[in-house]
């Protein structure tokens, strides 16, 4: 009997293993075909010269040197970083302020305010880019230029000037994502016990001291999370500038990003080797940015700990 039950138990275990592998297999099969294979093939392609039709030819590191010696690539990297910083860094400050207010018990219509601030996030990036594209068009009568003139400033060529395009795109990134970050900070604030603030108030701390010594330190993991998301997202910026610039998206360089550079190489210039080399370089940049992010944030923690001891 004992023997029999043991065997049955074991076959049950084997069955469970088979079930488990079966259940996770759809992801891995699809990943192998449409995730891993293309990623590896991209790295392979980065060392080939290929126009998409003819024979591939191994060219060593030539694609990388072509890309890295192309001033347009460096311009697009510069644009990506500048627009990334201008579009996402202010979100941290404004997002924390908004979340701090939304978390106040005295605030009436809290859910309505929260919904209104979050609403831009559900509009698609294409829609945002088109609406802001009209708002920031080059005409003197465009709403953005009209507003500038009201304040006695000159009109800006938003779509064709170096800083005009970058500022317009950063504003639309900010507008669409501020609600998302606010909601994450709000979740962080709600995880801080109210008793902390009560104790601080009894000790005579004012609002700014509460913000400085309770809110910001305890919110740090959430800030790190949003900085990480924003960095990776900003390095992949494509839709907003492409749609905003419309017909001139791939012929002008004021707002060209790294992904646009990649797309242009591959799908408008049929140079798939250099396109793939750009993709590999982008991967490297994202990995480096993530490592630097992690290093900086863990470094801050260590330093603080050291000081406290």
């Amino acid at each position: 009997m004992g023997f029999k039950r043991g065997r049955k138990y074991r076959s049950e275990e084997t069955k469970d293993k088979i079930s488990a592998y079966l259940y996770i297999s759809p992801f891995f099969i699809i990943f192998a075909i449409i995730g891993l294979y293309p990623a590896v093939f991209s790295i392979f392609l980065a060392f080939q010269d290929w126009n998409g039709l003819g024979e591939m030819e191994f060219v060593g590191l030539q694609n990388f040197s072509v890309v890295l010696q192309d001033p347009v690539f460096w311009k697009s990297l510069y644009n990506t970083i500048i627009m990334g910083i201008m579009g996402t860094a202010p979100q941290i400050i404004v997002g924390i302020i908004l979340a701090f207010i939304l978390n106040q018990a005295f605030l009436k219509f809290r859910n309505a305010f929260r919904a209104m601030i979050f609403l831009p996030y559900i509009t698609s990036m294409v829609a945002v880019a088109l609406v802001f594209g009209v708002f920031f068009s080059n005409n003197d009568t465009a709403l953005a230029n009209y507003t500038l003139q009201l304040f006695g400033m000159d009109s800006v060529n938003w779509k064709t000037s170096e800083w005009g395009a970058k500022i317009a795109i950063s504003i639309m990134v900010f507008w669409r994502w501020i609600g998302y970050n606010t909601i994450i900070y709000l979740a962080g604030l709600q995880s801080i016990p109210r008793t902390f603030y009560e104790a601080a108030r009894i000790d005579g701390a004012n609002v700014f001291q509460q913000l400085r010594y309770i809110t910001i330190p305890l919110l740090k993991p959430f800030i790190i999370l949003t900085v990480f998301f924003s960095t990776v997202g900003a390095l992949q910026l494509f839709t907003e500038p492409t749609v905003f610039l419309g017909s001139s998206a791939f012929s002008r360089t004021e707002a060209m990003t790294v992904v646009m550079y990649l797309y242009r190489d591959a799908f408008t210039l049929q140079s798939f080797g250099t396109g793939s080399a750009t993709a590999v370089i982008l991967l490297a940049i994202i990995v480096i940015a993530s490592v630097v992010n992690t290093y900086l944030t863990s470094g801050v923690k260590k330093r603080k700990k050291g000081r406290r001891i």
Partner: protein
Amino acid sequence: MKKIKVGRFLVYVFMIIASFLSLFPFYWMFVMATRSSAAYNSIPPTMTPGTQLVENFQKVLNEIPFFGAMLNTLIVCLVVTLVVLLISSLAGFAFAKFKFPGKNFLFVAILLTMVIPPQLGLIPQYFLVAEFGLLDTLLGAMVIFFLNPLGIFLMRQYISQSVSDELVEAAKLDGCSNFRIFCNIVLPIVLPAFATLGIIVFTATWGEFLWQFTVLRDPDMYTIQVALSSMNTTSNVDFGMLLSGVFWATIPLVIVFLMFNKLFISSITEGSVK
């Protein structure tokens, strides 16, 4: 006391300005969608709705296959969402309730795939889809979105928290097969998590652009994002028509959001913070 009152007043002023800036583009989009292009050049700018609502939308219909594109998008979003829910809950069930060799390694491997930027594989994915004859098809437009590591992560979390081991054991003793346990016990319990993950996947797929812009060249196969962007490629675009298209493409999602805004907002925190 007076100081507190002034402070609170300023807080309300700040929140009202913030809400105004959030909502203004929606209102302005509506105004432009009801005005002829000429209104765009008026000084001071027009700020009240006009009478061209229907005319502008008719121009949109002449320019792009609007309803076809909306339908295409809806099909893409629904299929992607259902496939991701199925793949994620099956894999999440396996990772939450079964012991098998390589479990931790495979789970970490899935999470690591999140780090790969989607643009890395873009070029080979394009040729792969072309090879299978899926360019200009909806299947081609959706296939890369079936991969959703976040979904597996969320479902594993949820299943290990809310489906008890005892329940699974008891069902096994009653002779339930693993797949029946999944269908009859796990699925009903994870429905709330399906709502969260479903919203995340659906809205993300709705707004997707780069991939569909790459594989869809036939206007009849356009998703709405590609169709809208295609209106902006001539230099003398009719702004009234353009924003009419954007308005009608945006309004359905806004209505759904206003109905379920708490669910939407909680899906963000659950999708990123947990």
